[in-house]
């Protein structure tokens, strides 16, 4: 690889179902102040470029990128906004440093989902206006279609999906900033109302508000500034065909391809053995299992059994979503992927508190852009410690 890049700082605020006390700008400011302090940088003099991630439709303001510089310390600096998952923004910032033109870049993503009064309609806007929207169904049916074929083809059960919910919401109890920690049983999930069969209400991650800022630096600057740099060793992203008429409904091909790209860069052949843990998109319960299989964290059809056996819970052989995932922390819209990355960073720095996994050196974050997309991104991080 041409140039090594590290994460030197991270800041976050939230994550709550409602944040009426702050505007989105004040929310972003708080996360940015914390990230810059953590990195030991002054945004006005040290940070050379800023990447933000936002979708105009979820903000309710078009050309939203114009609204971000003030609260990030980015006035009169290079700034651009990406419409994608938080990890797409992170990879864009990473690539800016790879060019060699820049040494310190910040990336931001946030959610003010509570301010959207018609979220189901905003989601429907992502559907094709000619082929799909006139049918008039709530877009959650797309998750229903996908879950149905995934369960049918892999032999995974609704009970196993429900166990993902119970696991992640329990993990969230150990994460002080998670919004939806709870002790619930798989039976509670199965008993919740059907939203789009086989998907039930508790299979769906509820929305939350929050903001995350990550500061990246070139090797030289990272080593000057930071005692505990977390290295980016792999990155990949991929989009499948969007079409609801003929996409692959069973396996998440976008995740498989994004993962392969990141593994190749990181020199990883056997992800299950070479990674210590992962944070994997779980916008819906079955998505965690589907993404695990696509990312080769287990064999096809095996993910449900692993969650049943407790392999993926805290204390298991391969913990997944120790943060609580989206099910436990909340669906943070475009910031969801950065929330997955945040947990990987905290685990690799040994700062995950009660949910710290001992002796970890390498972890992966995988983000999905949500319904109705087939858009995913994977990032592999390492703290550079020797495996014990």
């Amino acid at each position, binding site marked *: 690889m041409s140039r090594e890049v590290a994460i030197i700082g991270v800041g976050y605020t939230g994550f709550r179902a409602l944040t009426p*006390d702050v505007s989105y700008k004040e929310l972003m*400011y708080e996360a940015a102040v914390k990230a810059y302090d953590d990195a030991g940088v*002054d945004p006005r003099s040290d940070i050379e470029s800023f990447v933000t991630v936002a979708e105009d439709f979820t903000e309710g303001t078009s050309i939203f990128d114009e609204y971000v510089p003030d609260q990030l310390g980015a006035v009169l600096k290079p700034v651009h906004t990406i419409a994608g998952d938080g990890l797409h923004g992170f990879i864009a910032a990473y690539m800016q440093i790879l060019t060699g033109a820049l040494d310190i870049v910040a990336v931001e993503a946030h959610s003010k989902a509570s*301010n959207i009064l018609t979220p189901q*309609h905003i989601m429907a806007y992502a559907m094709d206006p000619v082929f799909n929207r006139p049918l008039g169904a709530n877009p959650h049916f797309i998750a229903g279609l996908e879950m149905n074929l995934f369960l049918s083809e892999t032999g995974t059960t609704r009970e196993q999906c429900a166990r993902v919910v119970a696991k992640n919401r329990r993990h969230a109890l150990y994460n002080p900033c998670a919004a939806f920690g709870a002790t619930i049983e798989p039976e509670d999930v199965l008993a919740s109302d059907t939203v789009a069969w086989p998907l039930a209400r508790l299979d769906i991650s509820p929305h939350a508000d929050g903001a995350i800022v990550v500061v990246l630096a070139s090797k030289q600057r990272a080593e000057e500034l930071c005692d505990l740099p977390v290295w980016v060793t792999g990155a990949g992203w991929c989009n499948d065909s969007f079409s609801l008429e003929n996409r692959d409904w069973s396996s998440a091909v976008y995740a498989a391809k994004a993962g392969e790209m990141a593994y190749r860069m990181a020199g990883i052949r056997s992800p299950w053995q070479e990674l210590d843990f992962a944070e994997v998109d779980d916008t819906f319960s079955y998505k965690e299992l589907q993404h695990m299989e696509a990312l080769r964290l287990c064999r096809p059809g095996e993910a449900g059994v692993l969650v049943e056996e407790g392999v993926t819970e805290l204390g298991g052989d391969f913990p997944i979503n120790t943060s609580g995932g989206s099910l436990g922390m909340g669906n943070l819209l475009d910031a969801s992927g950065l929330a997955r990355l945040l947990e990987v960073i905290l685990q690799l720095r040994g700062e995950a508190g009660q949910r710290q996994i001992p002796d970890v050196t390498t972890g992966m974050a995988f983000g999905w852009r949500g319904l109705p997309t087939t858009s995913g991104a994977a990032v592999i991080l390492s703290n550079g410690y020797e495996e014990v």
Partner: protein
Amino acid sequence: MSSKIKEYPGVALHESDFAEKKVLYTTWEPNARYAWDTGVAIGRYLAELKRGHIVGTTCHACRRIVVPPRVFCEWCFRPMDEWVYLQDQGVVNTFSLCHVRWDMERVKEPLIPAVIEIAGASKGMGILHLLGEVDPTEVHIGLQVQAVWKPARQRTGAITDIRYFKPSN
């Protein structure tokens, strides 16, 4: 060039062709609604407007008094230090005479949007509003103006609690 062309090929479309769906198209009625949390800075700004005051914040580092207020200084990237009451008058920084409505229909009396530098705030710090009770031909950069407020009981905590700014006497 075009003057040499006597006849254009193709079929002309009439509005009725669309109404009768001879030309196929799909429509969608938007349902995008939001309620933005005002937070600390905008929240107090609006609350003060309701009380008939314009309020700003001060940064001790760059010694600016800014309006509308924010809780952080975008230049210094530090928290603001103090809230300060400003006067409900100022100077026109720039203005325009807007002769069209939203549908681009022409109007006789133009709207006069203006940036008004508020007295008491730093140079260049202004709020965007409309001018009223003024002949459009008399408006000029540097014009002294003052706020015309709605009656207190009609105020809702919105920028429209000020109806417009008019020339100072």
